[in-house]
């Protein structure tokens, strides 16, 4: 066959260049800068044990942010997982405090998480409502229900159940280990399995994905279920770390989760992003937050920095992606 196509293809950009303008590179550089700045701000900052310990405080959110990354890549968003964490944790704690055996109580918490994911999935996929508004509604509802259940009091968990963050594996707290392991697993799933591949394809072009025989509704449904479930796991982990549960557990965590995903270069309109990016961004966020806290920086400045980072991150990712798009 003759090739008569006269339209020249664009020459491929060299690999080092594509690597340099990846958003993950930006995240990594920011992380380096953050560590440097932290060590300049306070002499107490640069201590690996302290950073690890600080990370445990954010590890539950970071774990959920990994799944959220997949949800965003698939072209949706979920703002409710932090509220989900609170409600599942409250249900779990309330169940075990009212005498239900621990395994059953944990089961109740996890089932509640799944159910909350199911409600989101049903409204977004079956009713085809925009996920962003739906999850703002469910975020209010879930946290509200947590408040109904727990009131203003905290519910204690038994002494033996406390301290998931005190379990060390090779000197690393268990929640951090879980985060790292989950990140590895999800990175493999997202980058190496057909399930992950199809998540990118749905997020890039859902119509084309359907035409290619990809069951996008099913995949999105499972992602919402997954994030609901993982949020409940994270909620119960938080309960173990704190030793008690209140309705305001992980309050405002949705901002942190979205921030981790966005800072890691996940594209808000779907189709792009990596687990590596979110992994780095989680550390970046911890470094920035703890750096400022240990330097006794006014918490107000932290709010400004976090809000500003979110906006800068989406502007930067948008620019990077629009450059590589054509």
């Amino acid at each position, binding site marked *: 066959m003759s090739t008569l*196509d006269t339209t020249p*293809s664009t020459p*491929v950009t060299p690999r080092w260049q594509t690597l340099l303008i990846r958003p993950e590179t930006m995240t990594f550089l920011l992380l380096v800068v953050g560590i440097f700045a932290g060590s300049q701000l306070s002499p107490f900052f640069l201590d690996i044990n302290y950073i690890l310990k600080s990370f445990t405080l954010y590890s539950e959110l970071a774990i959920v942010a990994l799944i959220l990354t997949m949800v965003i890549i698939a072209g949706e968003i979920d703002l409710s997982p932090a509220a989900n964490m609170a409600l599942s944790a409250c249900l779990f704690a309330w169940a075990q405090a009212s005498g239900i055996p621990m395994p059953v109580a944990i089961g109740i918490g996890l089932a509640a998480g799944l159910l909350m994911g199911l409600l989101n999935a049903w409204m977004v996929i079956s009713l085809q409502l925009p996920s962003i508004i739906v999850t703002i509604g469910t975020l209010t509802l879930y946290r509200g229900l947590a408040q109904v259940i727990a009131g203003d009091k905290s519910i204690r968990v038994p002494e033996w159940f406390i301290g998931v963050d005190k379990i060390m594996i090779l000197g690393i707290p268990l929640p951090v280990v879980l985060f790292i392991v989950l990140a590895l697993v999800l990175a493999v799933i997202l980058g190496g*399995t*057909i399930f992950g591949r199809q998540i990118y394809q749905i997020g890039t072009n859902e119509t084309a994905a359907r*035409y290619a*025989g990809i069951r996008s509704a099913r995949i999105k449904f499972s992602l919402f279920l997954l994030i609901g479930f993982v949020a409940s796991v994270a909620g119960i982990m938080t309960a173990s770390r704190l030793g008690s549960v209140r309705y305001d557990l992980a309050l405002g965590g949705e901002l942190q989760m979205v921030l981790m995903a966005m800072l890691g270069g996940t594209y808000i309109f779907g189709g*792009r992003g990596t687990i590596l990016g979110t992994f780095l961004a989680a550390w970046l966020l911890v470094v920035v937050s703890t750096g400022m806290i240990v330097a006794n920086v006014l918490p107000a400045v932290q709010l400004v920095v976090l809000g500003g980072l979110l906006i800068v991150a989406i502007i930067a990712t948008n620019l990077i992606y629009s450059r590589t798009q054509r």
Partner: protein
Amino acid sequence: MGENGAGKSTFAKILAGVHRPTRGTITLNGKPVDVTSPIAAQKLGITLIHQEPISFPDLSVAENLVLGKADDGWFSRVPWAQMTREAKALMDLLGVKIDVTRPMRGLSIADQQMVEIARALASDSRLIIMDEPTAPLTPREVETLFVIARRLRDEGRTIIFISHRLEEVRALCDRVTIFRDGNKIATEAIANLSDADIIRLMIGRPFKEYMHKARAEIGAVALKVERLSVPGLFQDISFEVRKGEIVGLGGLVGAGRTDVARALFGVAPAASGTLWVDGKTVSINDPSEAIALGLAFVPEDRAVAGIFRTLSVEENITAAVPKQIAPSGFIRRAIERAMANDSVRRLSIRLASLRQPIGELSGGNQQKAILARWLLTDPSVLILDEPTRGIDIGVKAEFYDMIGELAASGRAILLISSELPELLALCDRVLVMSEGRLTADIPRAEATQESIMNAAVPRRVAFEGAAA
């Protein structure tokens, strides 16, 4: 008038300021004018009535009439009473009964078009361009439209009426201009042209014989369709496609061909009708089910339904065969690369790297990659919807060769195309659809541009005293 893609709509949009011309001048009432935007067009008294009316569904009819009409400052008052009064007067003038205070949402397309016409009147347009306004209308509505159009003409307004319905053009127009392949072919008083003349002028490109491969053995029935219907889109479609056979599906844009294909493939399943694949009755409710049955579908609009623009060529090619590249769920890069490489070689896709985003390829190579995607599924029935649209002439020839080869290897092919020479060159039979119905099944021997066009152009029986 003109065939699909002759450039009628684009021309109309340039006149109305939606697109800018690269060169040339527009002369209006003897003066050269520059139509820079839709608003400028409106100020010049030019109104374009789009094929699918553009409206603001949540605003009232009256508001849709005046919106964008006069731009006298952001905070100037909206004169509701006057607006409603004027809108009512316009509707009365047009003789249509539409409550002008109701929102546009829920109006029939015909009524929406009436609103568009009223809008042209409201801004006192002297030149009204109607782009295929009758396509979605019932005969009675067409008649109403024509009565109004004639009255507007009698008032001294100019109307450009774009259509491919011979009868309508004959019934309404004084002169006809025929476009073909972006060129003006002829302008003539309608009385001087016979139907045959017009059809000849529309299609009259010199018939170019494409190389056609040796015909394959035509085998058993691979796909059979009976009385397939989706209310509002198409009715009672019945046909069959045999192994090794290339069946063309011709017709004008909007005839419902793509809708049939989408129904076959389970994208938008049919409301009623029966399907057989390889002699077995099947029901297909999702593309994945169609694929499992050995169907493949190269859709018409690559950007919307075909490619994953930002993903790699490799990933685009292997998108429909997850089980082959990932037998255990984990992607086997080596297999994937080998399959993609093989496809690239077989279809001679020009690219710099398999890892390159497909959006960087030329249109023809993107289309080849989509075809490659479907060939990997080893389909027994291949539906191609305008496979060569927007592709260079040289690459087209490659596609023709490939389609021939695919049939020769025993696949059944349903080829939807608006290009008559393409249908004539490739097909063993040509089915023609018009207004949602199958109007002809022409064997290769009898297929000519004229015979296809004759079946494709809708002919309305009665305009006079039309009772639907």
